[in-house]
C-alpha cells in the first residue's frame, strides 16, 4: 500500500515573456490531497482551473512553488516509472507499432527484445487488443489508442496511474465502454489512480472519491465519497448506475458546487 501526498502545495507560473510583464500567476493554492493504492481519486474542474498543472506536479514534470509532494513520505524527484502518465491525446510514438509502444518501459529497463515483446503481447491481451500488436498507431481508433496508452503505462509497473482526461477525446459510446474497462484495469493493477476529468458523470462513476478544483487560484473546495465504481466493477451496466436516484442527486449536487464557484468568480 502506497500513498501519494500533496501537502500545502502551491504553484506559480513565471510571467510569460513578452506579455507586458504581468505578475506571476498563482495557479494552485494550498492543495492538500492524498491518493492511496486502493483509491481512484477523480478531480473535476472547469478548463483552466489547474487540473493539468496538478497532474503535472504529481508526475514530476513541474516542481511546486511551495509545499511538498511525497510518495510514502519520500519527496518525489522528477518523473519516475513510479507514477506513469496517460495523456489525453495518447502521446504514443508513431515510429513504433502498438506492441513496441507497450514494450518501451521494458526496453528502458534493459529487458531483452524477445522477452519484452512477449510481455507486451500479454498486456495487449489484457487490454483486449491481442491481434493489434503489429498495427501502426494511425491504424488504431481513438479508443484503441487509449487502450495502448494505458497498457504502456501498466508496463512501467507504476504505483500510481496519472490519467489526464484519458477519455476526453472519445465519442460517447466508446467512452462509456472505456469507463468500465478503465475501472477493471485499475483494480487488477493494484495501482492508485488520479483521474482528471471535466465530466461530473465520469468522476462519479469512476472515483472512489471526487474532488472539486475551483479556479483562480485553483483550490480544492469540495470532496465527496462515491461508491458507484464498486457497482460498475460488479458488472452493473453503466446506464443502470447512472439512472439511480442517488447518482442523479449527487450529480446535481456536484453540478451546483461547480456552478457556484464559477458564479462567484463572475460576480467578483
Amino acid at each position, binding site marked *: 500500500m502506497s500513498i501519494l501526498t500533496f501537502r500545502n502545495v502551491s504553484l506559480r507560473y513565471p510571467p510569460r515573456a513578452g506579455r507586458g510583464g504581468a505578475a506571476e500567476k498563482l495557479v494552485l493554492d494550498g492543495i492538500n490531497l492524498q491518493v492511496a493504492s486502493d483509491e481512484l481519486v477523480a478531480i473535476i474542474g472547469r478548463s483552466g482551473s489547474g487540473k493539468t498543472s496538478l497532474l503535472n506536479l504529481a*508526475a514530476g514534470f513541474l516542481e511546486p512553488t511551495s509545499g511538498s509532494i511525497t510518495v510514502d513520505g519520500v519527496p518525489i524527484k522528477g518523473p519516475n516509472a513510479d507514477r506513469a502518465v496517460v495523456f489525453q491525446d495518447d*502521446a504514443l*510514438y*508513431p*515510429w513504433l507499432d502498438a506492441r513496441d509502444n507497450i514494450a518501451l*518501459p521494458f526496453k*528502458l529497463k534493459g529487458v531483452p527484445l524477445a522477452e519484452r515483446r512477449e510481455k507486451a503481447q500479454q498486456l495487449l491481451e489484457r487490454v483486449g487488443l491481442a491481434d493489434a500488436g503489429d498495427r501502426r*498507431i*494511425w491504424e488504431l481508433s481513438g479508443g484503441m489508442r487509449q487502450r495502448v496508452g494505458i497498457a*504502456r503505462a501498466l508496463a512501467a509497473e507504476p504505483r500510481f496511474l496519472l490519467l489526464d482526461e484519458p477519455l476526453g477525446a472519445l465519442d460517447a459510446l466508446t467512452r462509456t465502454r472505456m469507463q468500465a474497462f478503465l475501472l477493471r484495469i485499475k483494480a487488477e493493477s493494484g495501482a492508485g489512480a488520479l483521474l482528471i476529468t471535466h465530466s461530473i458523470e465520469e468522476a462519479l462513476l469512476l472515483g472512489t472519491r471526487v474532488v472539486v478544483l475551483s479556479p483562480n487560484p485553483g483550490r480544492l473546495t469540495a470532496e465527496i465519497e462515491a461508491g458507484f465504481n464498486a457497482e460498475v466493477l460488479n458488472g452493473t451496466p453503466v446506464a443502470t448506475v447512472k439512472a439511480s436516484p442517488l447518482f442523479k442527486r449527487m450529480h446535481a449536487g456536484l453540478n451546483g458546487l461547480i456552478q457556484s464557484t464559477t458564479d462567484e468568480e463572475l460576480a467578483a
Partner: protein
Amino acid sequence: MTLSTDIEALPQPVETTTEAALPRASRPVPIAVISTITVVAIIGLWGLASAYALVSPVFLPSPRQVVIALYNLVVTGFVDSTLAEHVGASLYRIFGALIASILIGIPAGIAIGTSRVGRGILDPIVEFLRPLPPLAYLPLVIIWVGIGEASKITVIALSMLPSIILSTSAGVRGVSKDHVNAARSLGASKRQVLTEVVLPSAVPSILTGIRIALGAGWTTLVAAELVAATSGIGFMIQSAAQFLVTDIVIAGIIVIALIAILLEFIARLIERRLVPWASHR
C-alpha cells in the same frame, strides 16, 4: 501590335474564361501531359533550329548528334574515361562527402538542438558557412588540403553541412513535449529520452535535410570539377568545351540533370520507406 485589340476585348475575356474554365474544371488536363508536351516542343524547336541551320552546328548540334555523342561517351568515352567512369568519379565524391557531412552534421545538429552551450558555439559557425558560395572557399581548401580528392570531398561536404545541421537541430527541437514527458514518466533516463524519443522523432526532418544537402552537394560537385579535377562529369564538360565539342557538352549537361533527378527520386523513396509515419502526424 495586338495591344489595341487586347484592350478593346478586355471586358469580354472575363466571361469567356469563366465559361471556358467550367468544362475544364470537370476534366482537367493532367500536368504530366502538359509537361511532356513542353519537353517534346523544346526538343522539336531545337531540332528545327539545327535542321535549318539557324544556329551554327558548332554552337548547337542537332539532337541526333547529341544522342550519338551520348552513345559514344558510353562506349568509348572522352578524355581517357568512359561516361560510367566519369559518373563513377563524381558519385564517389558526392557520397564520400555525404557520409562525412552526416557524421559531422547530425551530432552538431543535436548539440545545437539540445544544449545552450552547443548552440552558442556552433550557431555562428553555421551561420557563417551557410550563405557562402562553396567556390569562394574552394581555393583556400586546395591550399590547405591539396588538389586531390580530399579537397573536392571537403568542399562538397562543407556545402552539405549547413542543411544537415539545421534540419537536425530543427527536428530535435520540434519533438513533442508530451512524447518527452511520456518517456520520462515511463522511466527513461536523459540519455534514453534522447535515443528513444528525440532522435526518432527528428528522423523525418533529418532525411529532408539530407535530400536538400544532396541537391546542394551535386551543384557544388559539378562546379568544383569544372575548376579542379582530372575526372568526373564536370571535368568532362569543361574539357569538351575547351575543344568546342559542343555535343558532348550538351550530352554532359543532360546526364548531370538526369542524375540529379534520380538522386532526388531515390531520396524521396527512402524517405517514404523509412518514415511512413511522417505523413500521418
